[in-house]
């Protein structure tokens, strides 16, 4: 799926082994970046849709009117109606809830697991490192979303299963990046100084190493959000995501597949919203990465 996330994983490894950055410089850099501001606007809109779906949606997303089925976009229904006569705009607004819920849950959990294992692995090294990294390698041996597809095939359709499957696929990438950061940071003087004054492993890991290893995680989390939203939509497109009639962007696109000629709006408009949302997260992630990269500063 997200080729973009993989590309960024590689770039991040190179960039963040440099210096830590001043947040004001980063904010200034971000505000000058027009694509990032566009991305931010889209993300704010999607978050608003998630929080205020009940107020923003003009109709009940499940309300059917078979007399108006497949109706094209109009002033009354700006995104048109689907095969059951349901308002697509309302379904897209409510579908944002599923997308954001999956995105936030997957990123939080995968980052949590990846961070914990990555810090342990990088800090202690030796057998712990070897074990964690070999397990990560095994998970990384499955291409992209395919492991998640496998899990969903046997676990069955549900929002929880989607989140669990995507966390399982996602954590190794985060663990690898954090481990790389920790390996670099643990050799820096201030960590050795903390060790010399008798600080405990826990205090060194949580107080000294982790805060300084956080920068790449911000970029990874932002781009990862786009990936998780895309992955959920992909699973729902294949009929492996959330259960109908819960509105999900992927499921709406999938239902529009059968009506590409009579009602192209069913698949195209929600797909465009999905693409714009993923683009928005990628643009923001890209801008944060550029702002954190000392070579890109102007």
């Amino acid at each position, binding site marked *: *799926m*997200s*080729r*973009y996330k*993989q*590309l960024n994983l*590689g770039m991040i490894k190179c960039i963040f082994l440099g210096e830590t950055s001043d947040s004001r410089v980063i904010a200034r850099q971000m505000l000058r970046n027009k*694509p990032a501001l566009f991305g931010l606007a889209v993300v704010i809109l999607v978050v608003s849709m998630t929080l205020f779906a009940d107020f923003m949606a003009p109709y009940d997303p499940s309300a059917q009117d078979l007399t108006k089925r497949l109706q094209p976009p109009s002033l009354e229904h700006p995104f048109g109606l689907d095969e059951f006569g349901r308002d697509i705009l309302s379904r897209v607004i409510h579908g944002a809830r599923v997308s954001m819920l999956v995105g936030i849950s997957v990123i939080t959990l995968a980052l949590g697991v990846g961070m914990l294992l990555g810090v342990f692995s990088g800090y202690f090294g030796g057998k712990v490192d070897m074990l964690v990294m*070999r*397990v990560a*390698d*095994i*998970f990384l*041996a*499955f*291409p*992209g*979303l*395919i*492991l998640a*597809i*496998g*899990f969903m*095939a*046997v*676990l*069955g359709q549900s929002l929880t299963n989607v989140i669990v499957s995507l966390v399982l696929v996602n954590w190794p990438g985060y663990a690898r990046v954090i481990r790389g950061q920790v390996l670099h940071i643990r050799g820096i003087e201030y960590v050795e100084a903390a060790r010399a004054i008798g600080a405990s492993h826990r205090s060194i890991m949580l107080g000294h190493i982790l805060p300084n290893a956080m920068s790449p995680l911000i970029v990874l989390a932002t781009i990862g959000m*786009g990936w998780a939203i*895309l992955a959920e*939509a*992909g699973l729902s*497109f*294949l*009929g*492996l995501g959330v259960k109908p009639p819960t509105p999900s962007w*992927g499921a709406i*696109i*999938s239902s*529009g*597949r059968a009506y*590409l*000629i009579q009602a*192209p709006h069913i*698949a*195209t408009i929600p*797909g*465009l919203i*999905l*693409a714009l949302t*993923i*683009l928005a997260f*990628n*643009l923001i992630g*890209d801008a944060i990465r550029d702002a954190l990269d000392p070579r890109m500063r102007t």
Partner: protein
Amino acid sequence: MLKYILRRCLMLAPVVLGVSLIIFVIMKLTPGDPILNAFGIQPTGDQSYISELRAKLGLDEPIYVQYGKFLWRLMQGDFGRSIASNKPVVALISETLPNTLILILSAVIVAALIGIPIGVISAVRQGTWIDHTTRVASIFAASIPDFWLGLVLMMVFSYYLGLTPIAGHGTIQHLILPASTLGIGLSGVIVRLTRSNLLEIIRQDFITAAYARGLSRTRVIWKHALRNALIPIITVLGLQLGFLIAGAFFVEWIFGWPGIGRLTVQAITQRDYPVVLGALFVTSIAYVLINLIVDIIYAYIDPRVKYE
């Protein structure tokens, strides 16, 4: 170099073992009784017959023995039989895997044909409107969901313009839309990589020297700079293969391309678990092997790669 290849091959063993373990775990998570699923027996059926079958298939043995036997069967290429068609899973996979490889290879060609020239133009015109437009367009291309792009291309080129077949397999025309769907997304990544690598290369001394020798700009960029900029792109293409394989699952499903992705999705809808798990295992092993080959090619092309 030979040592490096051998070492990389040895490192594959634990990964393959781990992949088989995960597949085994997924198999055990499969809902319902495997005997009842596989033989279509009702739970209220003859219990002595069910027990007999369970013993015959080794399902009453300790879990580690079951895993050992499962691994042994995998090593012999025995993934069981399809519940839906009763054909050996390995036969179904060997029929479809080559089609997926053809699709992926075509997508890489499409991506390179679109991505490299646009990346070069973007780098050469750095800072101009062409560069800015190209950069945003490339991020957009990389952000488009394959399954949506596939539907849009199908709608425009097959339904409205009638230029390509809607779906199916057999001629080169059938390959155009699936390969373009997969390739356009990848081309976004290639544009960005080509641009950034080329920008680094054209600032190096050997490029200045080439200009000083009186070579034309076209020759310097396309022959000298691009050749050096292409090396990292090969690695990234290797990394992207996983996403291409996953993308192929969606694209094959949409366009009815008879690859391993369509086979798997069909098997999921039919709850044909032996096919799903067999396809999952083969896809992962193919991915691991392709990555190994890419690593070896990279080590061969770039002598700076550490062999140790």
